[in-house]
């Protein structure tokens, strides 16, 4: 009886935590669908995603581009330019935790786009970017 209760609890916990869990591909699909509502036929592009990643926006002096902290190699660890804290690689190929939580991804896009790009990123840019990190850096 006790074991059954435990199993049920674990099952429920698993279901609750997977509610926000995702795969990188699912996130690309989600942002693609969102982008397609204003741009019918939108297709994500790794090339555009890479351009977004390496572009020098020049909005923030300390963080002119994403690469200021993440480095140009998405398979390598980066370093926060202000605090010096190590930032794990962006590439899901070497860091399986990347792009697996919808909530985390939304949080970091909001923070980092506002900071580096000077505005929030569009759904199209987000789809492009995740497409890039999934394919790029090989």
């Amino acid at each position: 009886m006790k074991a059954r209760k435990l199993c049920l609890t674990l099952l429920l916990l698993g279901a609750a935590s997977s509610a926000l869990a995702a795969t990188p591909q699912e996130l690309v699909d989600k942002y693609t669908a969102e982008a397609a509502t204003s741009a019918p036929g939108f297709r994500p592009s790794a090339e555009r995603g890479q351009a977004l990643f390496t572009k020098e926006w020049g909005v923030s002096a300390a963080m002119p581009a994403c690469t200021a902290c993440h480095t140009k190699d998405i398979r390598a660890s980066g370093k926060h330019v202000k605090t010096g804290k190590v930032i794990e690689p962006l590439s899901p190929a070497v860091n399986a935790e990347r792009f697996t939580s919808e909530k985390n991804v939304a949080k970091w896009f909001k923070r980092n786009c506002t900071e580096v790009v000077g505005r929030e990123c569009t759904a199209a840019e987000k789809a492009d970017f995740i497409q890039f990190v999934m394919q790029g850096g090989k």
Partner: protein
Amino acid sequence: MKRVAIALAMLLGMQLAHAEERGGKRIPPDATWEKECSSCHVAYPPNLLTADDWKKVMGSLDKHFGSNAELEAKDRKSIEDYLVRNAGSGTRHSSSTLRITDTSWFKREHRDISPKEWVHPEVKSPSNCNACHKIVTGYPWSEHDIHMPRGIRWEGDGDDD
């Protein structure tokens, strides 16, 4: 089984007593605080700033010491509540810049560290606690866990408050 439990309880008791001896009140951990606040820097212990200061910090996360650190409303509120609940009190923990490193408590604790040591490449800034305090979970931190980066000497004075 019972013996193990008793031994564990005793160990825990000893640790608690030790922490209190050192003048620091143990602070219960909080998963959201730990996860969110440690993603860019050490999760600074709640008792190192006053409740009023924490409210100001948590009310301006879009401009968080030059970075955008916005959180979802629910997480922001839960972390603010945790910080306020466990905040420090008194002028020695208040800071008009909202920086812990500007409190008189911090300055006194670190009075023996010379200015040039703060800019050592591995230290970078006084806010980088982890450069010397190697174990930064479970406040209060222990002086036993202080290891200065290469080239910096530190000799404890036994003053652990």
